[in-house]
C-alpha cells in the first residue's frame, strides 16, 4: 500500500499545477471541517462551481447542482449563502460540491469535526449512502471513533506511523 501511495504521490507531483487543478476538479473531491465554501455565493452556485470551472453552461450546471443538493437533503437552502445556513447544512452543501463531479476518490478531513452529534450522523449517513451509490472511494481522516465506524476499512495511525490490528486492540 505504501508503494502505491508513493507511486500516486509521484504521479501527482509530476503533473503541472494546471493539470493538478483539473484532477482536483474531476477525479478528486475534497471535504474539510469548515471554510471550504465561497461565502459570497449561494449554495447552488457553490455546488455548480466545479462544473462551471470545467466549462459547463450555467443552466446545465445549476440543474445538476440542485439535483445534488436534493440528494443531500439541502435543496431548500439552494438560494441561501453559507452564513445563513446551520453548520450541518453547510457541511452537506460542501459534500454536494465535492460529489457533483462524481469523483473517483473523495478526501474528507475531519468532515464532522465542527458539528454536533446529530448533524454529524446526518452528514456521515448521507456521505456513505451517496458514495456507495456512485462508486466513490472515501478516504476519511478522523479522531472520532463514531465517524470511523462508518468506514468499510479502518487504518489507524499514531504519530505518522501505521498501526497493526494488534497495536490498535492494545
Amino acid at each position, binding site marked *: 500500500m505504501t508503494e502505491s501511495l508513493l507511486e500516486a504521490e509521484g504521479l501527482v507531483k509530476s503533473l503541472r499545477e494546471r493539470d493538478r487543478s483539473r484532477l482536483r476538479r474531476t477525479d478528486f473531491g475534497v471535504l474539510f471541517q469548515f471554510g471550504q465554501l465561497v461565502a*459570497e455565493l449561494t449554495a447552488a*452556485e457553490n455546488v455548480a462551481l466545479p462544473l462551471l*470551472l470545467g466549462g459547463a453552461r450555467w443552466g446545465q450546471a445549476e440543474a445538476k447542482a440542485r439535483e445534488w443538493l436534493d440528494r443531500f437533503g439541502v435543496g431548500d437552502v439552494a438560494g441561501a449563502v453559507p452564513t445563513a445556513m446551520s453548520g450541518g447544512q453547510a457541511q452537506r452543501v460542501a459534500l454536494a460540491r465535492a460529489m457533483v463531479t462524481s469523483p473517483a476518490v473523495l478526501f474528507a478531513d475531519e468532515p464532522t469535526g465542527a458539528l454536533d452529534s446529530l448533524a454529524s450522523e446526518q452528514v456521515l449517513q448521507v456521505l456513505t449512502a451517496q458514495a456507495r451509490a456512485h462508486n466513490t472511494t472515501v478516504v476519511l481522516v478522523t479522531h472520532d471513533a463514531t465517524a470511523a465506524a462508518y468506514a468499510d476499512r479502518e487504518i489507524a495511525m499514531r504519530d505518522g506511523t501505521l498501526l497493526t490490528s494488534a497495536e490498535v486492540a492494545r
Partner: protein
Amino acid sequence: MRPSTLVKLAWAGNRADWLRLVFTACGAAMGTIVLLAAATVHWLPPTELIIELGEGAWSITHTDHRYATSLLNDTAARPVVAAALLLLTLPALAFAGQSARLGAPARDRRLAAIRLAGATPGQIRFVGVAEATVACFVGALLGIGCYLAIRVLAHRPVLADPWAESTGEPPRNLVPRLPLPTDALPPLWTFGAVVVAVTAVAALLSALALRRVTVTPLAVRWRSRQRPLRWWPLVLIAVGFVVLVVHLTIDRQNVGNQRVLLPLTGWTAVLSLIFGVALCAAPLGQLVARLTRRYMRRPGPMLAAKWIIADPWSGTRSLAILLISVFIGAAAIRGITYAEAGLVFGWVTEQDVHRFGLFVLVVTLVVASAGLLFAMVEGMLTRRRALAGLIAAGTPHGTLARAVLMQALLPGVPAVLLAVVVGVAAVASAETQPLPLSAGATELALLGGGAIAGIALAAAVSLIVLRASVAVDELRTE
C-alpha cells in the same frame, strides 16, 4: 471556463467588495476626467489675434480672450497646463490602485475557496485581474459621462471687457468668455484611447498586486519583500536629473526634436524623478527605523521600528501617492514663484497661475490623503490578529497607538523632505534666469508641513479602527 462565469466570480462579493469596486471605479473616473481635460487643452486650436496698431500697422499675437483664464488664452502656456493635468492622473490612478487593495485579504480567501473547487492558477489570476479591470472600465465610462456633463454645465459664456479689466477702465467692448474650454472637444479616438489606457493600467496594477499573493487550495500566502533594500531609487533620481539636463540642451527650433526628442526626454526625466522619489521611501524608512531601534529604547518606537524593518515596503507603498503629490506641489510652487518674478509667461496673469497651482495642489493632496487613509485602515485590518495578540499579552493601547503613529511618520517625514527637495531642484535646474533657492520657502514649508500633518492625521483617524479591531475576540475568529 466561460469568461462570463469568471467575471461573475470576480464580482461575487460582499459589502466590502462592493465598496472596493466603487472606490476603484471612482479613481478610474477621476483619471479619465483629468486625461480628457489634458487632451482638450492639447487639442485647442492655436489662437491668432490681430491687433491694429493704427496707420496701417498691425501685430499678430498668439493670445486671445476666449477663456476666463489667461493660462488657456496664451497658446504658449497650454502645454504646461496639459502637462500639469497629465501629472494629476498619477495620483488619481494610484488612488484606484490603492482602492483595489481595500478588503483584499477577504477577496483572496474567496479566491482560495474557488481554487479548492478546482480553479487553475490562471483562472484565479483572471478572476483577480477581471475585478479591477471591469471596475476601471466602468469607471472610465463614468468619467467620460462626467466630462461631457461638466462640458454642458460649464458652458456659460460671461460678457467681459478684457482690456478694461487689465487697465482698470470702465468696460466698453464686451466679449463673451468661457470659464472652461467647453467650445472645444478632443478627437473622438481620444475617448477610446483614454478608456483603453485607463483599463489597461488597472489590469496591469492588479496583476502586479497579485504577483505577491500565492493562492493555493488550502491557503493564501502574502509574500513580503524582505531582502535588503538597495539605494537604486536614488540612481533613478540621478538619471532623472541627467535626462533633464539633456532635455534642456536639445535644440528647440528643430521640428523633429519638438515632436520626438523633447517630449521623450521631458517625460522620461519627470517620470524617473517621480518614481525615484516614491520608491525612496522604503530604504529611507528602513534606515530611520534602524537608527530608531538602536537609539530609542521605548516600546512604541521599538515596535514601529521592528514592523518597518520586517516589511519596509508595506508602510511606504501607501505613501507613494502623497510623495508624488508633494513632488508635483513643490515643483509647481517653484515654477509659480519663478513665473511671479516676471521671468516667463508674459501674457499669463499671476492670479490665474495661483488659481491653477492651488487647484492642482488641493486635488492631489486630497486624493493622496484619501488614498493614505485607505491604506492605513487596510493595513490595520490586515494585522488585526497580530495587534489583538499584543493587547492580549498586556501591551497598553497607548503604546500600540504610538507605534502605529511612528510607523507612519518614521518613513514619511524624510520621504516628504526628499520629495520637496527633488521637486524644487527639478524646476530650478530648468530655470534660465537666476532665482534664489530659498524662493517660495514659506509655501514649500506649508506644503511639507501639510503633507506630514496629513500623514499624522491619516494615522490618527486609523487609530479609531485600531481600538475596534484589536478586541481579544479577534484571536478566536477565523
